[in-house]
């Protein structure tokens, strides 16, 4: 396929998508689908006349108000209905086709949740049908790939990525351009590109939403990356717990191959690229890149010490580029609009936007995307709508089991890799769990340590045994039977496990403890001195 053919599909689809009187978009991503939104979509499709387009789309963001249905009758006038039920189909039909006012709960599109976001990764999410490749093409899909293949050399692509300042969205924040350059320079007859879709942090669902809402974006990003680093094979390592994402990815790969975006001699060039899906069996540690590689190779999912890094010695010993879903989702827009454009968004060292999953004690649970440097307070109170039930905010946990808790005093920090690290947490993959005044911080630390303990692969001593002891001490303190000696042993274990563990899982396992000790030490002290009731499970 060449650019003209691509544009032809684009124009045709555009015309088609504008040929209706009214438009109904039903969110069919996991959260709304779990409330049977797909049945609502089917019922509507049955009911509506041919002048109304009913489309299943990806995540609209405000998961707590789902199922969400967007209705556009007159152009530019979009109404978003929330908590739609199967019995509402009749009312929606009247509202759309007979233009009667519908007395259904509406979700204001003028609220900060929608107004204050800036979308790059999620630009098509909630807009296009994830199962229709033409819909993606209409939104400039695969333009970047064809442009790159026909106009850029691999090094130019790498340079563009360097210029963009994009950093790995999986948690580490390693400069993506630099990683690409390393793999590009590595000499090998065979190289691989891997998309890490083994999202496992509790409360995080960014990658799932992207895969379910806009799967072609990942395939295009991977193909561009493969071209840049000289790889010919790619794997998407996705956890088996995401059946919908897997189903949509499979369909997307099939469609992309049939349209010639994957396969041999792509766009008439000498570039060949194939993508396969590999399913993870649910081990958290397989999100760690060396463990992920072992898992793809059919071995036990255990990490190996780095260096050597996968960029040099990766899958089956070959140079391998591993990026996370959200990183790949940024590639096409960067190549379409230029690295400089991307670098103009965000802070000095953290460029672009970041997707966050808001969960916990917050009004608007769901998915948001904001530019780097956005104030944490605004994410929680403006976009997130604050803490429900009139309770006071206490802390926000970022970065999952590897991250930490940030207290009220630090809410004015501007979100970036550096600022979060300084605050004793990490950016991580983008999960944010908001806690209100009723949350017990020792219990929070204990919960995360229990997670690490059961997810430790068992290869290295500090993580395998250390997490058990840290958990047991936290458990004792939470139950009111901990001692001063326990606390000092806990601190020693935190240091030792963080410093000597083999992989990121163990190295960061103490973070939830360290950050709660840093900001909420009095809760530990009060429990040890028996000035507080034991903190039992919430």
């Amino acid at each position, binding site marked *: 396929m060449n650019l003209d053919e691509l544009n032809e599909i684009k124009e045709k689809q555009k015309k088609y998508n504008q040929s209706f009187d009214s438009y109904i978009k039903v969110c069919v991503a996991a959260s709304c689908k779990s409330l049977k939104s797909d049945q609502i979509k089917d019922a509507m499709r049955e009911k509506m006349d041919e002048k109304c387009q009913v489309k299943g789309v990806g995540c609209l963001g405000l998961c707590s108000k789902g199922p969400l249905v967007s209705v556009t009758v007159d152009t530019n006038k979009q109404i978003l209905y929330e908590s739609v039920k199967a019995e509402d189909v009749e009312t929606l039909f009247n509202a759309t086709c007979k233009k009667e006012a519908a007395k259904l709960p509406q979700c204001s599109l003028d609220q900060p949740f929608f107004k204050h976001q800036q979308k790059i990764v999620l630009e098509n999410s909630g807009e296009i049908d994830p199962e229709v490749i033409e819909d993606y093409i209409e939104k400039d899909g695969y333009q970047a790939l064809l442009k790159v293949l026909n106009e850029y050399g691999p090094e130019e692509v790498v340079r563009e990525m360097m210029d963009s300042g994009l950093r790995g969205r999986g948690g580490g924040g390693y400069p993506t351009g630099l990683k690409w350059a390393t793999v590009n320079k590595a000499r090998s007859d065979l190289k691989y590109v891997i998309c890490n879709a083994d999202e496992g942090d509790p409360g995080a669902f960014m990658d799932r939403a992207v895969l379910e809402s806009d799967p072609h974006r990942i395939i295009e990003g991977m193909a561009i990356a493969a071209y840049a680093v000289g790889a010919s094979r790619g794997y998407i390592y996705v956890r088996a717990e995401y059946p919908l994402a897997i189903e949509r990815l499979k369909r997307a790969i099939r469609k992309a191959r049939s349209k010639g975006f994957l396969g041999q001699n792509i766009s008439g060039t000498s570039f060949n690229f194939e993508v396969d899906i590999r399913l993870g069996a649910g081990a958290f540690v397989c999100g760690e890149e060396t463990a992920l590689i072992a898992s793809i190779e059919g071995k036990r999912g255990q990490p190996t*010490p780095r*260096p050597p890094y996968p960029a040099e010695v990766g899958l089956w010993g070959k140079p391998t580029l591993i990026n996370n879903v959200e990183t790949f989702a940024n590639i096409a827009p960067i190549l379409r609009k230029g690295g400089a454009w991307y670098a103009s968004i965000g802070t000095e060292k953290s460029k672009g936007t970041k997707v966050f999953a808001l969960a916990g004690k917050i009004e608007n649970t769901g998915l948001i995307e904001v530019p780097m440097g956005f104030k944490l307070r605004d994410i929680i109170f403006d976009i997130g709508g604050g803490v429900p039930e009139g309770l006071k905010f206490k802390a926000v946990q970022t970065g999952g089991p590897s991250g930490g808790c940030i207290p009220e005093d630090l809410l004015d920090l501007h979100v970036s890799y550096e600022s979060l690290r300084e605050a004793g947490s990490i950016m991580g993959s983008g999960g944010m769990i908001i806690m209100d005044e009723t949350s017990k911080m020792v219990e929070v630390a204990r919960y995360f340590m229990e997670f690490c*303990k059961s997810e430790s692969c068992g290869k290295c*001593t500090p993580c395998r045994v250390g997490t*058990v002891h840290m958990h047991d001490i936290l458990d004792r303190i939470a139950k009111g039977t901990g001692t001063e000696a326990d606390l000092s042993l806990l601190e020693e274990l935190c240091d030792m496990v963080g410093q000597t563990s083999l992989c990121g899982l163990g190295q960061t396992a103490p973070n939830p403890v360290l950050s709660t000790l840093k900001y909420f030490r009095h809760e530990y002290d009060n429990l040890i001195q028996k000035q507080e009731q034991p903190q039992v499970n919430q």
Partner: protein
Amino acid sequence: MSVLTLTIDGQEVGASSDQTILDVAKAHKINIPTMCFLEGLTPWGGCRICVVDVEGAPRPLSSCTTHVTEGMVVTTTTGKLESYRKMILEMLYAEGNHTCSVCVSNGHCELQDKAQEMKMDHVRLPYLNQNMPMDSTHEHFGLDQDRCILCTRCVRVCSEIEGAQTWAVAGRGVDSHIISDLGTPWGESDSCTSCGKCVQVCPTGSLVNKGNAVNEQIKKVNFLEHLLQMRGQ
């Protein structure tokens, strides 16, 4: 492979790029304690006792797996590293059920030796008292999981030297344990050749010859070096 220079404990030494920090340290008689490492087997990097400080690295690196680079500055012994190593030993002792006094390997055990070498005279962590199974179904050998420190030497020697691949690790976290033939009793294993290499490389009394009383099990780990010499490696 290229020749390079690095500094270990203030001493400038020459090395080749295919060597690990541990290789170079050994060649220069600088002692770095090891546990899962065994000359002749692929380094594993799991026990973490051999961690050393490398200038510029955010945290200590396992010397058995880290290759040397030009200008690398390595420190093998600091108070901090020693306390980490001691804690690792405490963890291993607290994890298993190591009753040295009644162990066949008493007096000939690498774990015991390391504890003495590093002056680990008591374990501050509570013992986990895990109920680990024992496998004495094999005609000549026994497996006592209580004494296993998960160094995986048996797994590696069986796969890399004997080529039988009888041993593997099952379970995860603290539930990890050694299994033969996907969990069939050792005595019923089809792949085991009864060569006994796993017994000889086991650093503790976990894999043993049957018929030994306390203190009687002496391992001959050096057979690996002999094998390598014979193979000209």
